[in-house]
């Protein structure tokens, strides 16, 4: 932290899977790299209703650790889509969130699960909801000398179901559009009490999308599709080499509907 504060052109080096390519391509030329890989050896743990993931938890651990699979299956599912074996051996959850890629699968899951990050700076520690973390293309609301130390995720509850879907042009690549959905069942059969949706690839940051109240008619598929259509209309994605804005919007609608359906089905399966 002292080093960070003392050097204007300093950058944290954790997994390096996002930062090092930038150095190799000379898109970033920091004067100082602070290697924090040895700073924390803690494994994932559960305290009360929270799954605590130290920021240096490698993606591979997220993929394989029992606690993650048990308490945040959404994340365990989404991590399969991140990078490749080598990237997952080094990449970290803290690094991923701090990098704030607008197509980030991890960012999507963190938003959908109402995760928080613990950030430590020279003035102490604070807890920031991930919904207040992303500030735009590859930027966060963290101060220059703040480092993420932990990621706190509310453990999955009964009657809750999650789904992660993404569309890629080539398997394991950056997502064109990704959706993470967490659905909570209501009291009545087929009723969806709450749905939380996070989208990647449709804005300058991973974003929450409010599906509004989801109707509870006899045709749940239609209700969910209506919610998806409502959201898609509000989106203003950018066009790039992989997909146009119009296609992203259309894709978002399809994936949101599918994710909500799958999340609801899993919640129902869990409730039985």
């Amino acid at each position: 932290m002292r080093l960070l504060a003392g050097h204007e052109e300093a950058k944290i080096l954790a997994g390096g899977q996002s930062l090092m390519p930038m150095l190799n391509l000379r898109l970033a030329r920091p004067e100082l790299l602070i290697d924090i890989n040895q700073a924390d050896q803690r494994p994932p743990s559960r305290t009360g209703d929270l799954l605590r993931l130290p920021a240096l938890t490698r993606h591979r651990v997220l993929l394989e650790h029992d606690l993650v699979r048990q308490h945040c299956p959404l994340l365990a599912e989404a991590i399969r889509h991140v990078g490749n074996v080598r990237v997952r051996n080094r990449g970290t959850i803290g690094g991923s969130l701090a990098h704030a890629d607008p197509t980030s699968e991890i960012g999507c899951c963190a938003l959908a699960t109402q995760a928080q990050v613990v950030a430590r700076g020279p003035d102490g520690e604070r807890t920031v909801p991930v919904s207040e973390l992303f500030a735009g293309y590859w930027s966060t609301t963290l101060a220059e000398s703040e480092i993420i130390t932990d990621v706190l995720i509310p453990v999955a509850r009964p009657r809750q179901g999650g789904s992660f879907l993404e569309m890629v042009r080539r398997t394991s690549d950056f997502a064109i559009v990704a959706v993470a959905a967490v659905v909570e069942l209501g009291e009545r059969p087929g009723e969806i009490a709450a749905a939380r949706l996070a989208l990647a690839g449709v804005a300058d940051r991973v974003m929450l999308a409010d599906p509004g109240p989801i109707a509870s008619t006899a045709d749940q598929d239609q209700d969910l599709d209506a919610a998806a259509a409502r959201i898609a209309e509000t989106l203003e994605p950018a066009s790039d080499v992989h997909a146009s804005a119009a296609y992203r919007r259309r894709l978002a609608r399809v994936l949101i509907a599918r994710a909500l359906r799958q999340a609801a089905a899993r919640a129902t399966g869990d409730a039985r």
Partner: protein
Amino acid sequence: MTIPDLQSLTGPYRIVGTSPAHHDFVDKVKGSLHYAADWQLPGMLHGRVVRSPVPSARITGIDVTAARALPGVAAVLTAADVPSNQIVELASGGLAELQVSMPVLAADRVRYMGEPVAVVAATTPQIAYEAAELVAVDYEELPGVFDPISARADGAPRVHEVGNTLVNWQIHCGDVAGALAAADMVIEGEYRSQHVEHAYLEPEAGVGWIENGVLTLRVSTQVIEHAATIAHILGLPQSKVRVIAAYMGGGFGGKEDMTVEAFLALLVWHTRRPVRMIWDRQESLVASTKRHPFIMRYRTGADRDGTITAQQIEIIGDAGAYPNLSPRVLFAAAACACGPYRVPNASITSTAVFTNNVPASAFRGFGAMQIVLGYESQMDQLAERLGLSRTALRERNFLAKGDLLPTGERLDTCVEVAETMHRAIALLGEPPQPSGPGKLVGRGIGCNRHPYGRTIWFRDRASAWLSLQGDGTLLIRSGVTDLGAGQAASLCQIAAEILGAPLDDISIYIGDSALNPPAGGTFATRQLYMSGNAVLHAAQELRDRMAPVAADLLGVPADDLEFVAGRVRAQRAEVSITLAELAAACDKRAISTAHLSTWRAQAGSFDPRTGQGDTFPDYTYGTHAADVEVDVETGQVTVLRYGACHDVGRAINPMRVQGQIQGGAMQGLGYALTEDMAIEDGYVQAVLFANYLIPNAQDFPDVLVDIVESGEGKGPLGARGIGEPPIGNVAATIASAIQDAIGVRPDRLPMTPERVLALLDQRRQT
């Protein structure tokens, strides 16, 4: 096919037709092969090219002072430092094309983004990079033109003063207008393909140095004959330039023109120190040569029963800013534009047009590849409109031995394309069911006719030198270069077959312009045909010379002898000698056990005015088939099964033949579905390897392979070339399958989910 089953289907051969793993493949698996970048010399410098950031501009000034002043910089060179700053490639031997030269370093004008403007050498790559950034070039941007249609129009910005149309090939036979007017059915279609990149895993690289006064370059290259061009650029005698081709980490045509050679040569000659240059992947993506995007316009006339009566075809290729091999590529497209079908009336024009895009040149398939989408799309459309099955329509029109091509040439080898079609479809088995609601499945096929060997009017030749050494081991020297497809190893297999030397006893030395007899470059699927024949004949001639000596020693007639397993033995007696004993005996009788043979391909000529004459020596025929599933909500296409069958004449090494087909098909799948440089206004959008989507291990199923061995190829022992043909069928096959699934034919590549979704919308509206 499992490995024990990979025995050749025909021929009484022992080594040819088997699949030993030997020579360079052993070194590759051991990780001990030294590629072009795996070479260091004391005092070696690191070179870097300075490139234009804009696609069309006048250079009004270059200031290298700051760059030269940077500590660690040994040289900063510009156009003024190049003794002969032009590369003139008369790609069609002077036939019909504009003469336009390409500078090594741009002097007063840049014509594409990435065009080299200066070169730098420094003591570390980092310093070289910084020095390159310090070279200050003033660009005054000029209007550019970025597509061939606009470039052909009156008043278009001129890429070159002499004009924007580089070459216009014409092939005409019969009466196309009359035949189209009389046809029962005329189908029109326009098809477009994109810029794609070779994306070999090994980027362009090389090391240069001076040894005994000879400028020596060890580079990843398909063509060592560039030594002559390098000598010319530097104003040196050809005897003072040597090019050594390292085994390549892939070439695919992207290392057929010079890449690093001229830059290394300039820096080495100027600094008198060794220099290494490795291109960045991103540099390679932006600035290395690409495949020609084609616009293919077809009007096909047919009778009600499906017999094709006429083809009127216009092909327009985007050559980019400089000629390179564009004339030849568009020629190959023209020569193959009618595909494996009989067409009695044909009118084909094939034009290469300059634009301010990155130059296009050789890429596996070379024009005859892109055009498959044109003729196969027309066949499927015709079948649909006439209510005929796709296979029946094709069978009605397939060429046969003895038929005439539109250029007036008569096919003199058998055409087994129908057999390949049936086998490819058989590989797929039963058509699959959709995996769920909102999914459609479809099956498609794609047939092709692909040339092997260079255009006949080049009077191609290749030489090989063999020597049976005193201890019975065999040495082969050939100028062949090896792209990773067994170019060198196949020659060993042929020599082993004829002379009986065990593969482990054969050493081959390749790709050295100073030390090897010239074999010509590795392109045009020509090496097995040319160097294979050269080695075959050299081995046969050597055997014929030594046989009488062996016959004398063994007391049997010479034609009774067998050369096998390191020995020469009499077929009908129990006597034999070792190859070492034979060598010793020859030596005693002053009979040389070394032999050089030059094999010459058939010669011919072509008249560009009439479009009649000789084109290619022969063709490889094949068919691919695929089952796909389309997600109607997202447009995503999943390939469920893929099969490929080619008539390879004779499989010298069946496992390697299979590997070529699998690899070529996979490259074709990327071309069909995911790869696109996406050049807009002269700027490449897919600048990162993360954004240029070549297939990975999970994207596509295994390519199932079957081969036909008709034995009538013009390569050694009846082989046909197989390096390029398998990439050609794929896009057409996938388009065919998508059309079967959704009822609309894709006509643009790549067939992205977004485009497929638009086609689905189109279908919904009609």
